[in-house]
């Protein structure tokens, strides 16, 4: 168990100030003194909603909504990508969709995030994992549930896992997650 934080977390925001100290007269002495002035800092808000398209990868997300995990495969070589790819990186040919929902899957690597980006801080600690699938050449970044994040061990690597799907899809890659089998 680590020690409690020795200082309070800082946050932006505070009182609005309508005016700051400034010389009454702008004589040369007062103007020269401005070189020693501390910087003024203001808040600038920036908030935007993007309309993001999944483009040619859309069927992958539609699959999650329908409890199926799709992958793309190059017909010629059989090279298979679990994160979909419209064209194979070796042949340049268009890939085809395949269903890998029921393929045996194992944990390839993992971590427990005790901190995170601002958006995910409320969800910490969570287990982030890369999962490998039989007959698939790439890995899938996903969340791993059903394990105690405070008891992380390298023994989790190699563990057999299976997909679970959100009932109420959000059309995000987190619509699928994995649990120990």
């Amino acid at each position, binding site marked *: 168990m*680590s*020690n409690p*934080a020795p200082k309070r977390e*800082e*946050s*932006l925001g505070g009182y609005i100030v309508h005016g700051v100290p400034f010389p009454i007269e702008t004589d040369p002495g007062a103007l020269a003194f401005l070189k020693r002035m*501390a*910087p003024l*800092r203001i808040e*600038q808000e*920036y908030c935007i909603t993007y309309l*993001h398209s*999944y483009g040619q*990868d859309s069927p992958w997300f539609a699959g999650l909504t329908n409890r199926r995990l799709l992958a793309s495969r190059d017909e010629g070589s059989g090279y298979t*990508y*679990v*994160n979909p*790819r419209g064209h194979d990186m070796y042949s340049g040919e268009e890939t085809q969709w395949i269903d890998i929902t029921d393929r045996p899957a194992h944990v*390839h*690597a*993992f*971590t*427990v*995030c*005790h*901190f*995170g*980006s*601002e*958006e*995910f*801080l409320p*969800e910490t600690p*969570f287990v*982030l*994992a*890369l999962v490998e699938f039989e007959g698939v*050449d*790439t*890995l*899938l*970044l*996903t*969340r791993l549930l059903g394990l105690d994040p405070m008891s*992380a061990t*390298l023994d989790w*690597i*190699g563990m057999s896992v299976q997909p679970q799907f959100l009932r109420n899809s959000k059309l*995000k*890659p*987190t619509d699928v997650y994995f649990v120990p089998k």
Partner: protein
Amino acid sequence: MRPVYAISGGVSKFAKARPDKTFPAVVQEAYAYAIADIGLEFPAFTRLADGSVASYFSDHFTRQLMAGIMVQDYLGLCPKPSHRVEGGGATGGLCFQEAWKSVASGHMDVCVAYGFETMSHVETWKGNEFIALASDVSFDYPVGGFYSGYYAMMVTRHMKEFGTTAEQLAHVSVKNHQNAFHNPYAQKRSRLTIEDVRTAPMVAWPLTRLDICVMSDGAAVTLLASEEGLRRLEDAGAHIARPLVRVKGIGRGTDAMRMADRPHTDYDYFMEHYATEQEKGSDETRRYYKALWKQGTRYPGVHSFRAGRTAGNMAYRQAGIENPLAELDFIELHDAYTSSEIQTYEDMGLCRYGEGGPFAASGKAFMPGVEYGLRLSEKPVCPVNPSGGLIACGHPVGATGLMQAVFAIWQLQGSLGKHFGDETLQVRGAQRGAIHSHAGTGTYVTVSILEQEA
């Protein structure tokens, strides 16, 4: 290509926040220092500079598009040619190489490479979010976008496959923080123990807060010149240090945006396309790798950076280096994480893949003459991050690769003591060094070799 000389550099103080100045004025600190160090007045240098390359990573941090031209304007370099480069954490390294190209190609005789980042304008966790946007926003970011998490997954795989330990990672943190104790430009100058590192707050298992670099505000500048540029500068009164520092080789590599998509190549493909010349020439090393593959290792997998290996091999070929550990006197490499320093030892051929952990704890990458409070089995061979690296100096992204270049120039000029006010970190007799800049989960990597002109 023409010979290119790195003649001078400057670094602003790296700090958690620099609210005292706007970012163009922070760059100006480093720029004015670099010009003053060759003994020229500002207007005289401005007249002779042919142009520049600007380096900054994120438009989000500054909430300002076209920030590069604001610096060009502030430095008085308009209307000379310039462009901005961006490649995540490798932005500074790319900038240095683009400036090299400008001079090597004959397009410019004197080129300024400047870089900066102001990361303090948002809180740390929002900053982490911005950085995580440098992962695929369709597939990776929404799952829990957090770079420390991505790197921690590489670590667990490295530990599982090769037996690397968290204590070996901690050796890197102790070394780099202790080195930075003698570097006045560094943000974090601490004497640490292995226990300090391991008991620091856990960020992404097994990486603690002391395994990870911090966000910073800062800037760095390097000045590059051709032989004609040297002549023009010296005719104008510049005092350029001898022996000259020449950029002898550059290399770059790339890899898939999603580390989950990195291929898992077989032994034969690895030996043919990625093995170093030294590895190819050793029967014992072939047997070593064959055994690794037999137990399940694939390359690059998630534990290794083929972009780094590609960049290193390319730069070594150009500079005529066959045995980097023996032929480089120091390396400034991109240690955003203690683990990535260990991974980079392997990519740069200082040791074989899988041996980075024991190499880190051996002492070979430590500085001679510095007391670390550790029991090390080997003597220093090639100090890695004698400056303290990103972990201790800070990582204002667009400035970082150029900061490495500045410290390398000073090492090779033998002038580090003058600039640091402390001789401790000067590598005695340094004749050749490497700088290494790295982006994303290994997406862009640059390696540049600098050496004293004979």
